[in-house]
């Protein structure tokens, strides 16, 4: 049977989502053609804001690349605007004359930004904020010019203003009303928002009405009704959108404020569907993706002729995507007849929450500063839950309902019910995410995004998804007494395997696998690196490292990047360098045309974008200039951060720099269960951030405070205080001992923070502080292992070790 023909007009978020949903239900049913006026593949329009702010680039926001269209047999007509729908011949016609006939047609033409009809609106330099083309024009202006005026203080206007500010422009926001985002916020929340945006450097003129845009051919200034003139090289109009239904209307399809559709997203012509912002459904139009994605699902269901789902309208919630500002709004928040308002205001923490109730049911909520419970209020609101029994705790959030809450994010997500919606854009609830994490063995945010779509649109629920990952996976850490196998290849736990290696004198990966009856022929990429590490720690002077059981970064001693190139971070002892070293680095960077040189967060210099084949030559030069590998790629000693200490600083109590350099010289090259970072601060002001490091030293008048088990990262943990010692020699001994217990006893990929939490600080103190003989023995074992470890892997490879890694097997032309 010949396939039916489906044509989609509008290669945007709603249209393509419909096609995706359809392919899931009936992949073979239609021959699909897509027309898009933009010359691009489908991208995530929401993330234009971070692109403008320089936080992402276009590649990051592509949703479906060319390969996707090809793989699904979809014919994509990029840059072809449809100008006519001939419903009698069932054919669409593009501006360039391309035609396509259809059995069914989807209109998903989105909206057009509204341009206020003032004189000068057509001048060069006046732009809207809707598509990639607009972004390009804004970025170009940001490059050359200084002053930007954004007209409109709504969601889009503020995101545009923030982006331009980040691009270095002086930005003024002109807003008609006296509160920002008046559709989403009440006056109190809007005030807080305004204040924190002002602190970032935005200017506001409000209430203020634009009268004209001035300039000859290019914009020069904006004039307000009261006569004020604001200089401007760029004017962004962000005053709202209008559903784009010109094409539908011309084709004689009934339109009102949008293309009118029924509950199966059909227009008055049943062969023609419409989805997205161009649609009017039960009198409503929408400007956020969540409802559009719901529409897409229903539309696809009908196109697949399953016909069991109906779209009945959506309730929406909003978040602002300005990094560092947390804001949530849903439903009715202005109050009215019979409404009660519950408000929590903590100016000190910058937190404001308002929940609007009517007959003990949530009507709406506005939150600023702490939006963690937004999903919960939204759920209560949509379900129409009677909250009479929750009233006294409602404002404190869900975690405070039981006795569990310390208010940390992990405890709070843990307390959410499975039905709580985590990702508003894609309508994904907690249960679905947790199930995907456990069933599909997901470990990273990327994986969760790929499998569930949660956090893949606007990204504002990323924190929640990460917390779910942490709480779902992290549970593994806490059940230390319950046996958890190393991986799917065996039933045995990390501890059993480690003990067995010593007891039975196992000295190869093969013999461990045989002894413990591995169920796979040669393990997997989880157990092999772990076994390799365990053997290396157990038999430092005998074990022959198995390179093929190391992750690529450790195998080639450089960090793989997303494009397959590598990064190179030479060790800079204690973060201290010299003009001579810098000159040598500069010359090497130039010689090898390193595309990006970055000062890392670890007080070192990173050469990014080095092709694999170039690595040995570059390392040869580095080696000759006296540099060794910084192990920035390894489960190994990474950096030792230091501050200038008493050599220069007026507060310094000890020579923290030398202390740090000594520690780094002692420990570099050592392989670890996870990465290990050290730091030494010269006084309790702690400029080297020693208290979020695996091992941190804070110098004080009387000696050195030692701290352990801290990290930054996804889940920041401040260190635990271990003890105070008096001399640099003691610092080194305690440090070596601590590193060695950790090496000998932690599970592979368990960083010091979870390890200290698992075994308890008391245990660590007992081993490192109280048991003096034990400490000295541990330190001695560490130093012994170091005699084999401190061989610069770069120098070796520059001389020819593992040559096969760096040259192709063959080149074929």
């Amino acid at each position, binding site marked *: 049977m010949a396939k039916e023909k489906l044509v989609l007009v509008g290669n945007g978020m709603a249209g393509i989502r419909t096609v995706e949903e359809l392919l899931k239900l009936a992949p073979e049913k239609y021959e699909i053609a897509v027309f898009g006026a933009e010359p691009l593949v489908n991208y995530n329009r929401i993330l234009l804001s971070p692109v403008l702010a320089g936080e992402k680039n276009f590649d990051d926001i592509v949703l479906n690349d060319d*390969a996707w269209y*090809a*793989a699904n047999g979809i014919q994509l007509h990029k840059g072809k605007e449809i100008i006519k729908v001939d419903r009698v011949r069932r054919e669409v016609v593009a501006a360039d004359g391309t035609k396509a006939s259809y059995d069914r047609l989807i209109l998903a033409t989105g909206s057009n930004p509204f341009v206020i009809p003032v004189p000068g609106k057509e001048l060069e330099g006046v732009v809207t904020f809707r598509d990639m083309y607009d972004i390009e024009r804004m970025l170009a202006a940001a490059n050359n010019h200084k002053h930007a005026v954004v007209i409109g203080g709504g969601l889009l206007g503020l995101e545009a203003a923030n982006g331009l500010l980040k691009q270095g422009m002086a930005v003024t926001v002109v807003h008609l009303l006296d509160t920002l985002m008046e559709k989403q916020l009440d006056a109190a929340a809007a005030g807080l928002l305004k204040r924190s945006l002002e602190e970032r450097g935005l200017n506001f003129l409000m209430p203020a009405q634009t009268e004209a845009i001035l300039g000859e051919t290019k914009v020069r200034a904006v004039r307000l009704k009261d006569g004020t003139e604001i200089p401007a090289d760029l004017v962004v109009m962000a005053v709202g959108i209008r559903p784009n239904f010109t094409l539908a209307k011309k084709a004689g399809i009934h339109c009102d404020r949008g293309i009118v559709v029924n509950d199966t997203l059909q227009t008055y012509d049943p062969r023609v569907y419409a989805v997205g912002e161009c649609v009017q459904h039960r009198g409503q139009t929408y400007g956020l993706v969540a409802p559009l994605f719901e529409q897409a699902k229903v539309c696809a269901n009908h196109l697949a002729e399953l016909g069991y789902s109906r779209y009945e309208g959506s309730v929406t919630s909003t978040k602002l995507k300005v990094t560092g500002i947390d804001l949530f709004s849903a439903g009715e928040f202005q109050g009215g007849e019979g409404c009660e308002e519950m408000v929590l205001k903590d100016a000190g923490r910058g937190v404001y929450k308002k929940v609007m109730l009517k007959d003990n049911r949530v009507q709406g909520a506005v939150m600023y500063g702490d939006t963690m419970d937004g999903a919960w209020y939204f759920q209560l609101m949509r379900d129409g839950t009677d909250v009479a029994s929750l009233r006294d705790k409602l404002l404190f959030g869900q975690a405070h309902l039981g006795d569990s809450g310390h208010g940390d994010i992990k405890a709070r997500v843990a307390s959410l019910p499975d039905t709580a919606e985590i990702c508003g854009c894609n309508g994904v609830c907690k249960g679905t995410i947790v199930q995907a994490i456990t*069933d*599909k063995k997901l*470990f*990273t945010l*990327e*994986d969760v995004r*790929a*499998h569930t779509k949660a956090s893949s649109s606007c990204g504002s629920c990323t924190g929640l998804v990460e917390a779910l990952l942490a709480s779902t996976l992290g549970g593994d850490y806490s059940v230390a007494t319950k046996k958890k196998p190393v991986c799917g290849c065996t039933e045995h736990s990390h501890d059993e395997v480690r003990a067995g290696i010593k007891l039975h004198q196992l000295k190869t990966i093969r013999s461990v696998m045989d002894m413990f009856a591995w169920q*796979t*022929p*040669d*393990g*997997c*990429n989880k157990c*092999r*690196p772990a076994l390799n590490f365990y053997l290396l720690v157990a038999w430092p002077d005998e074990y022959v490292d198995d*390179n*093929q*059981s*190391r*992750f*690529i*970064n450790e195998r080639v001693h450089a960090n*793989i990047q*997303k494009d*397959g190139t590598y990064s190179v971070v030479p060790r800079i002892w204690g973060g201290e360098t010299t003009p001579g070293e810098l000159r040598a680095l500069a010359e090497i960077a130039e010689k090898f045309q390193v595309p990006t040189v970055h000062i890392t967060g670890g007080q070192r210099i990173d050469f990014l974008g080095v092709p694999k084949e170039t690595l040995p030559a570059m390392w040869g030069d580095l080696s000759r200039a006296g540099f060794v590998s910084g192990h920035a790629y390894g489960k190994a000693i990474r950096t030792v951060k230091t501050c200038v200490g008493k050599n220069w600083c007026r507060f310094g109590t000890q020579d923290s720099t030398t202390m740090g350099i000594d520690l780094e010289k002692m420990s570099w090259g050592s392989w670890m269960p996870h990465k290990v970072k050290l730091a030494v601060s010269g006084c309790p002001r702690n400029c080297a951030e020693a208290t979020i490091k695996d091992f941190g030293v804070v110098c004080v008048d009387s000696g050195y405070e030692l701290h352990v088990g801290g990290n930054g990262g996804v889940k920041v943990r401040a260190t635990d205080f271990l003890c105070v010692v008096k001399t640099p020699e003691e610092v080194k001994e305690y440090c070596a001992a601590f590193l060695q217990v950790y090496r000998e006893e932690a599970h592979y990929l368990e960083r010091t923070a979870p390890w200290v939490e698992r075994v308890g600080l008391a245990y660590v103190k007992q081993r490192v502080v109280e048991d003096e003989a034990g400490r000295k023995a541990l330190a001695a074992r560490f130093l012994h292992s170091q005699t084999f470890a401190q061989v610069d892997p770069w120098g070796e490879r520059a001389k020819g070790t593992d040559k*096969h890694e760096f040259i*192709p*097997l*063959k*080149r*074929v*032309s």
Partner: protein
Amino acid sequence: MQVAAQSKVPAGNWIEVGTLEDIPRQGARVVRHADGDIAVFRTLDDEVFALRDRCPHKGGPLSQGIVHGKRVACPLHDWKIHLDTGMAVAPDEGCAASFPVRVEGGKVFLSLIPDAGCPNK
């Protein structure tokens, strides 16, 4: 895929790319080609497979992954790919094109014409 060793001297589109010993066990090497790199893998028991060196997820270089059994773990986000078919291990979905390879007299021969079935050539 590997072809039984009794077949005749390779002819036609087969090219010699090196010896078996050139490829580390549980590892891979890259054959550079204008149409895209091809990764040639060698398993623990010396089976040899060739795949387009592009992960179906986000294009990661599969040649750089850890080889275990008849699978490779992509270095970028840890998808697992079947070496014999190029298919992603479920529940992930997608494939990397596989290329015919054979080993004769210790030499590795590769065909540049991918097996049918995977659009990601």
